[in-house]
């Protein structure tokens, strides 16, 4: 009978299905529930058809889906990192009293400064570059040039190159840039190439294209790695600043506001300390300070002794390499532009130590000899090398700074010759 046949067939199908389910259950039980080592123990290979097929059947996502998500993560991360930290978006919020924040504020003020004409001269340097622009401005009608100063305490030539690139991206803003050095000869006091502070200063100014050159300029792999991090993962370098922003949002906003509105004026009218190291005397032959400034404290005396009587360094030529690299970059940057590069020897100190190195080399003299840069007469500031004009072993006091500014403005004016007229 057809109805019975149908029922029989249905029953047979049901039995077959149940057998399949039982077999499947048995297989699952043996594969999942057993911690007994099978006879052949090596792990299956992903290329094994069974294991790959099995894995794919259990997963929503294929290997391509996973790869696509990973690519998306990389793209999204890079996009946000670039938008937030490789622009001025976050950098403009940096705490203004940090290394990077203060440098960026200095550069921003200079970038925003309206130029009176084409005869602008810009000075870079460190804390020793005590130019008083209110003094040089007074002399502008006489010299024909106006000086601006972006010198930043603790910044070295590597920083100066990136600072100049940032503040003068078109290489036509200045008639000259003035670059100070403590000695025209390539002495070997200290190793600037391993200066970690540069990493702190330069984070906002570095571009991805700087990665190779910038990181290579550091002597150790550890510093090179940190330099690469500073170039690519700027957020990581801003990490401490970001956490400070979360903690002190209001006070920082106020400080930034004040710096943007008042810092330029405050710096213009700034009067530095009037104290001096008058009375200081050193017997270089005996390698001894014979007389300290009468009103100096113990810590000031200790500082004077440790700096002035520091042992002579062994000449390695490292400084010459460093100078050739970074001063060379500054010169190359302005090559073919209207901007001259002027090097000057700073007043060396309240008392001048006899030059300690028997090997004399001077990258700067080479540059000047090849017409790539202008060297101001090295004795221009000799008259300032007196204890009365210094506040410590290396920094000019207010009177020293004012006289230095006068001398510098005149020397730069005469080195550059007749100024250009506006529009010419």
């Amino acid at each position, binding site marked *: 009978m057809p109805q019975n046949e149908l029922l029989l067939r249905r029953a047979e199908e049901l039995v077959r299905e149940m057998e399949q389910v039982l077999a499947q259950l048995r297989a699952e039980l043996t594969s999942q529930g057993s*911690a007994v*080592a*099978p006879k052949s123990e090596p*792990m299956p290979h992903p290329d094994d058809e069974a294991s790959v097929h099995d894995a794919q059947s259990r997963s929503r996502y294929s290997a391509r889906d996973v790869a696509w998500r990973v690519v998306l993560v990389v793209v999204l991360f890079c996009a946000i990192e670039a938008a937030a930290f490789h622009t001025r978006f976050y950098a403009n919020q940096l705490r203004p009293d940090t290394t990077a924040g203060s440098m960026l504020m200095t550069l921003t003020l200079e970038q925003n400064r309206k130029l009176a004409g084409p005869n602008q001269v810009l000075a870079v340097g460190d804390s020793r570059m005590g130019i008083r622009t209110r003094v040089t401005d007074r002399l502008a009608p006489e010299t024909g040039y106006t000086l601006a100063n972006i010198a930043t305490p603790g910044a070295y030539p590597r920083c100066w190159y990136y600072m100049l690139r940032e503040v003068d991206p078109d290489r036509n803003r200045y008639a000259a840039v003035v670059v100070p050095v403590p000695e025209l000869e390539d002495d070997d006091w200290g190793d600037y190439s391993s200066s970690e502070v540069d990493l702190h200063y330069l984070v906002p100014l570095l571009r991805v294209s700087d990665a190779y050159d910038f990181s290579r300029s550091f002597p150790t792999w550890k510093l090179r790695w940190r330099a690469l991090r500073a170039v690519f993962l700027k*957020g990581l370098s801003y990490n401490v600043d*970001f956490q400070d922003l979360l*903690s002190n949002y209001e006070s920082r906003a106020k400080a930034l506001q004040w710096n943007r509105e008042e810092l330029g004026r405050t710096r213009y009218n700034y009067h530095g300390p009037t104290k001096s190291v008058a009375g200081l005397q050193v017997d270089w032959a005996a390698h001894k300070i014979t007389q300290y400034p009468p009103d100096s404290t113990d810590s000031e005396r200790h500082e004077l002794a440790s700096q002035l009587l520091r042992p002579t360094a062994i000449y390695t030529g490292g400084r010459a390499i460093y100078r050739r690299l970074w001063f060379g970059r500054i010169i190359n940057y302005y090559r073919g532009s209207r901007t001259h590069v002027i090097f000057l020897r700073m007043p060396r100190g309240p008392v001048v130590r006899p030059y300690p190195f028997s090997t004399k080399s001077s990258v700067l003299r080479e540059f000047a000899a090849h017409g790539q840069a202008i060297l101001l007469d090295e004795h221009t500031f000799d008259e300032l090398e007196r204890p009365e004009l210094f506040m410590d072993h290396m920094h000019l006091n207010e009177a020293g700074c004012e006289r230095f500014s006068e001398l510098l403005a005149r020397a730069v004016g005469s080195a550059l010759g007749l100024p250009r007229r506006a529009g010419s």
Partner: protein
Amino acid sequence: MLFNTLRFFIFFAVVLLLFYLGPRSWRKTVLLIASYYFYMSWNAKFVLLLLTLTCIDYFAALWITSSAGRVRRLALITSLAANLSFLGFFKYYNFLAGSLVQLMGLPEHSFMLSIVLPVGISFHTFQSMSYVVDVYRGEQEAIRNPLDYALFIAFFPQLVAGPIVRAREFFVDLFHWRHPTGDEVLRGILLTLMGLTKKAVLADQFAGVADRYFNNIAANPGSLTAWSGVVAFALQIYFDFSGYTDMAIGIALLLGFHFPVNFRRPYLAQNITDFWHRWHISLSRWLRDYLYISLGGNRGGRLRTYRNLMLTMLLGGLWHGASWNFVIWGGYHGALLSIERILGVGKQDPGSHIRWTRVVLTFGLVCIGWVFFRAATLHDSFQVLDAMFSTTLGTNLILPWQLWMAAVTLLLAVAEEKQGWFEGLVKAPAMVYATAIVLLLFCLELLGLTGKTVPFVYFQF
């Protein structure tokens, strides 16, 4: 080599490459060599200790399988005695010697030895002992291949701080290894990054607050100050340990191994019993299966149950570290568990209002326990407790943005408890998954501590 260092991630990348790109027959060997290298990068000498324990338990299990009656029992006792002797010597010798010396009034440093505690010894000895006991109980077949057994003990994702994996769980994965699915890879990546974020961002931030308080308790008076310091430590230890565990689970998952869950939002527990079902689950499970039940569990009447609970928790406390502080911490939790049993806490489901009150109360009780866990001495512990309940207020040591961060994690925990967003995230569209990962990366970049690597708290155990 810490999980939260660049060195570890380079190591892991190399292991992944060798594991997946090398010949299939190398795989176990790659994992074993990598695991020993990982252990030796901390202190190469102690690999001998690890090898010795591995050999003892490997042969003990075979001995148990091949013998019967008293000999079988002798094999078990030999193995347990060896494990406990090593653990006892390295971890508890100075503690016992110091206590004895104090009791007998001898000079302070009599009998003291300069012992370096091998990293992870508490974890791998417990794992090893559980295997031998399982073989003895007939719940696990003895492993014949010594490399398989060595890998079980030394497998680097869980070698130094757990989770304490049962032999059965591990060998199922090892013998029936299959390539991780796409879901598992995505889950593994997410877990690893979440764990790293928990550690490098949350735990390390709160560690700074807790250290500031506990390193100079006398200089930080006031109840608010004390509570903020203790709560900071509660958050530190949770994010530190659960972060490590998340990383361990994620890393293992990327290698095709499945570890058990070790934390389930413990600070949302409604009572202490519930807390121990959510905190360091693999240890709780170990203590239950191999200690509490072996002591008789709840089979011998109420008083015996309370005694067993107390003993289990006291030993659990002592497992964490060799000091009276840990014993008191364990005893405190044992007492709370017993009290909850007496009062029948947790048997009825209260309304949501009361539920939250219970959560807060439980968190407060757990925090009080953490005082003993974190303070350097008993004297310090009581000083902190005194400050926590003093009438002077003091100042809050946790910064407002850190509190916001804690609030966000609380919301996420509540959402996971109710909705289970984590699995949803793994299965979410690519853009949502990628956004979550990028968010974690930016948290690490901006909110982590740079310049110093803070070790995981549980590495000292």
